[in-house]
């Protein structure tokens, strides 16, 4: 993980600031930095999104491929997550340096999406037990400035919203075998229902309080943080504690409540933005990576 050095006196300053609900950049304890979201940024994926949160930048691409359903759930497709840490983000990621963080992030994502409600996996089924859509969700970290989990989850939700899976027609031939035919029309596609896709909220315990969307400096002052994934209804799908420190049961409860509260408020503006972007259609001027 990209870390920064912070001196003792700076830590004291940050700590006292959070106690007074005024963080170094002027935010309160439950404020996010402003977020920029753009979808459809990579043309050779089925769905993609780029999210920048402060100086954190995350790119998510989703590729749909036809695969075999898992034997236990023959009527469902599945999602595969892979997180790649680019050495552009920090030189620490060079070579195999980012592998550990990447695995940790993708394992968390598997847990977050390990339920029936997040994504309607049945809609990914083509023919039971034989063919289904596999969504490969590839996350690329372009810049690290704290709060990777939240940025990644928002980018995934936006990319899933943007995903267009071609429609398939199954026709059986004379010998009883099935043949899959992909639609040629690029507009003839299936969209996913992303209403129940959760967003992750990371709460960092700093001193006696907790903050959301911690910067790297604030992260350096905190010993433990709680990761909660929350749907728009406030349902928690996954909860994890990261960091070496310990948390009081009482503060875990308090942080969960706060996480639910904050997480619920993330969904409405995100959906509104995605729909607004969608309504602009092809007229929208794309910003991409050089804007």
């Amino acid at each position, binding site marked *: 993980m990209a870390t920064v*050095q912070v001196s*003792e006196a*700076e830590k004291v300053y940050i700590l006292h600031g959070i106690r007074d609900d005024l963080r170094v950049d*002027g935010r309160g304890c439950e404020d996010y930095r402003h977020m*920029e*979201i753009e979808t459809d940024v990579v043309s050779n994926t089925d769905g993609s999104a780029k999210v920048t949160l402060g100086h954190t930048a995350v790119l998510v691409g989703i590729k749909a491929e036809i695969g075999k359903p898992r034997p236990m759930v023959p009527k469902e497709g599945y999602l595969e997550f892979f997180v790649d840490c680019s050495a552009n983000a920090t030189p620490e990621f060079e070579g195999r340096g980012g592998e550990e963080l990447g695995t940790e992030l993708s394992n968390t994502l598997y847990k977050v999406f390990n339920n029936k409600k997040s994504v309607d996996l049945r809609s990914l089924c083509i023919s039971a037990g034989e063919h289904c859509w596999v969504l490969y969700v590839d996350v690329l970290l372009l810049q690290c400035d704290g709060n990777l989990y939240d940025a990644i989850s928002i980018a995934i939700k936006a990319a899933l919203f943007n995903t267009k899976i071609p429609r398939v027609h199954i026709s059986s031939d004379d010998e009883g075998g099935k043949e899959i035919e992909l639609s040629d029309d690029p507009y003839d596609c299936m969209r996913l229902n992303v209403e129940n896709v959760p967003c992750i909220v990371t709460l960092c315990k700093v001193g006696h309080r907790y903050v959301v969307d911690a910067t790297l400096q604030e992260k350096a002052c905190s010993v433990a943080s709680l990761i909660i994934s929350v749907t728009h209804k406030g349902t928690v799908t996954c909860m994890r504690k990261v960091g070496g420190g310990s948390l009081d049961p009482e503060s875990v409860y308090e942080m969960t409540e706060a996480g639910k509260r904050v997480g619920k*408020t993330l969904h409405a503006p*995100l959906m509104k*933005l995605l729909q607004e972007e969608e309504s602009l259609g092809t007229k929208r001027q794309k910003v991409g990576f050089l804007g």
Partner: protein
Amino acid sequence: MAADMRLPSIRKAVSLLDSAFDRKDLVVPGDVITSDTGFMRGHGTYVDEEKLTASVAGEVQRVDKLICVRPLKTRFNGEVGDVIVGRITEVQQKRWKVETNSRLDSVLLLSAVNLPGGELRRRSAEDELTMREYLQEGDLISAEVQSVFSDGALSLHTRSLKYGKLGQGVLVQLSPSLIKRQKTHFHNLPCGASIILGNNGFVWLYPTPGQQDEEAGGFYTSLEPVSLADREVISRLRNCLLALAAHKVLLYDTSVLYCYESSVQHQVKDILKPEVMEEIVMLTQQKLLEQEG
């Protein structure tokens, strides 16, 4: 609490000076500086088909027959006398290594600091053993460049009461090209906070100190909570600095102060939003122009 989400917008350059665009001494890589063969090739240039060509984006400088291009986006190239803000990365024998945004870590020799107990104190072997008590890894210091080694590494000194260990405050890391060279880089701003504009692009914001204890030699740091009012001023200044840097405005006391004044109508946390940033930088530039002419 609500998160502010938006579509990215294409960044526009906010500049009231059009002349910046047709300046002849600004080049990009590949630009031919001169096809006259009478000149000597300096840093940031190469010869391509007998034409002197720029290899970096920046400003052309000519000293007699020597042509150099000074890059705009660069690490810090220190010169003797520069004020810097740096972070201790290592404690070694008789020296500290300091991160100063240069290509190589700078050194601060034990013999180049003022130890508690007056200027004329002899440095004993004991001092060498207790170096970590004065400055440890992660600590921030302000210092001056004493000399430059042949490989470009800097040797620092803190032999003045204005330099030394930094206490509570906020560090902002910017590009060294944005810092305007001035007589003094220490300012007590009238808005209620102090600023050190390090030539290396590190800017330190801290509450204006009261009476200083001279005996401590600058190694004593107060851990008393900073008042909320001071905090707000510091946070506002921090965001103003980032706004100015995002729009490539030169940083010195006047520009920072004008930016602070233009930002007062906005909440501190809103300053970093692109449209607010644009607005206050525009206002700042207007004020700076008025002041100049």
